[in-house]
Every structure is written in structure tokens, then in C-alpha cells.
């Protein structure tokens, strides 16, 4: 197997693995956060505004982890830095 196809295969597999493994943690975290926030809103409906705002900020923080994985896999597929190295 020549190095070009090796790099291509490793990039595609790496991108898939990054998304697959990297989205498990944020998924669990976001589920936990939303369930806790819903419980809190059910207990104190008056505090809904500040709870919702905090929830959104927290979800954005958690989500950014998954977004990092996504950007890494996008870079591996669309803008792979190793291609130039190999093809040259």
C-alpha cells in the first residue's frame, strides 16, 4: 500500500472515529444538563428566565467539545495538512 492511500484511509477513519467517540461525552453531558434544568424549572417556575439563560450558556460550553471534534474531522477530510506533504 502506497503512502497516499494510507494517508487517505487514516484520515477518513480518523475523522469518523473523532466524531463517533467525541460526541458520546457531550451527548451524555447535555442530557444530564437539560434534565437537571427541567427539574429545576419544574420546582421553581419563577426562575425560568435565569435558569434558561444559564442552561443555554452551559449547553454552548458542552457543545463546543463536540464542535471541536467536528472541526478536527472536517479538517482531516477537506483541508488535510498531510496531503501536500505526501503528494509533493
Amino acid at each position: 500500500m502506497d503512502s497516499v492511500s494510507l494517508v487517505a484511509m487514516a484520515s477518513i477513519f480518523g475523522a469518523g472515529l473523532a466524531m463517533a467517540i467525541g460526541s458520546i461525552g457531550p451527548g451524555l453531558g447535555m442530557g444530564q444538563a437539560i434534565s437537571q434544568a427541567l427539574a429545576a424549572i419544574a420546582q421553581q417556575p419563577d426562575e425560568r428566565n435565569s435558569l434558561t439563560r444559564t442552561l443555554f450558556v452551559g449547553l454552548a460550553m458542552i457543545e463546543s467539545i463536540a464542535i471541536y471534534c467536528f472541526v478536527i474531522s472536517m479538517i482531516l477530510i477537506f483541508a488535510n495538512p498531510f496531503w501536500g506533504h505526501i503528494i509533493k
Partner: protein
Amino acid sequence: MEIVPLGQISPDQVILWSWGFVTINATILYTWLVMAILVGGSILVTRNLSSEINASRWQHFLEVIISVVRGEIGEMTRKGADHYIPLIGTLFLFICTSNVLAVVPGYVAPTSSMTTTAALATCVFIAVPYYGISRNGVFHYVKEYFQPNFIFFPFHVMGELSRTLALTVRLFGNIMSHEKVIGILLAVTPFLFPVVMQILGLLIGVIQAYIFAILSMVYIASALSAEDEVHHNVDINKEGVSA
């Protein structure tokens, strides 16, 4: 109409016009388009303002936006919001407009390019020490970096840098991923399903604009937090003196 091919992840790579070393890419064009819409619309609406009950409906529209933004910021800082409206409100309106316009065919959201989001995040990165120093003075602002003791200085600096990077990548990743998903779906299931995803994209765009504005406000408010303690101590001292 597909402006950005599926094999490219950034509208920066789409060169529309070039002359010598001056190049106009899709990001610049659509950024200026969004700015023209915002500025031109605001000028048109605020040209004849009135304080009557029956003001024009566009004036009511702008007033609703301003009062909502002011209310949100006021709830977060627990103080006057007027200092922060120019920055936070502009960030929100720019990102929201550029995301929502993505339903127009032939338009590429400038926020799907990392250069735009990096520029916006840099604005926040500069605004945080600006507001912090203008409120608390240089000494109190710098002192925050050495809390609870001087070992934590590199961690504070790293935190500032990494949250700027997080702001950049979050907005870019969300909008760019959505455009890619639409492009892939158009190739796989052409007619109905991409429309549903476009509607979801409107929601995502507005939420991301909201999150960007709220997070910048949180960062600025964290730089202002020392001020509360300072004022609090002064109040306590005054009470002690009067008692």
C-alpha cells in the same frame, strides 16, 4: 445555487474578483452586504423618529430589539446596560442577520468562515480588558490575574486565550457544519428534507447569535466582578464609620 463547492469548507476560497493583490472573496462581499443591510436599515428607520404613540412600525421593531437586548444585559450585570449595548447588541444583530439570511439562495453566511468568527472573537478579547480597566482601573484588573496567588497567572492567561478560541470555533463550527449538512442532503434526498433542515438552521443561527452575545457579556461581566467587591467594601466602611 451552490456558491461554495462541497469540497471546500470556507467561503474564503471562493474568489469572486481580483485585481493585482486586491481580491474580493465571498466572505468580504457578504460581510459588506450584511453591514449595508444593518446600517442602511437603521439609518432609514431612525431618520424620522417620533415619540408619539403612533410611531412607524419599523421604529417599534427597533425599539423592541433594543429593549430586549437591554433587558437581557441588565439582568446579567444587575446594573446599567447602556455601556454594553453598542458592543453586545451589534455582535448579536450582525451574527443573527448573517445567519438568518442563509435561507436566501446564493447567499453564504460570512460566519461560516473562520476569519469572520475569529475577528468577532478578537473584538471580545479586546473588549474584556477595555471594560475591566475602564471600570476598575489597571491595578484592580491586573490583580485579578494573580488571584488567589501568583501561580495562577499562566492559567488565567491560558483561559483568556482558550475561551477566545472556543468562541471562534463554536460559531464557525455550527454554521459551517449546517451548510455542509444542507449540501450533502441536497445531493442525497433532494426535495423536502433540506427544507426542514433549513428551518432548523434558522433556529440554530439565532441561538448561536444569542449564545455568542451572552458569552461575551459573561466574559465582560467576569472582568467587572472585582468592582462589586470594591464598592461593597466601601459601603461597609461607610457603615462602620457612621455606626
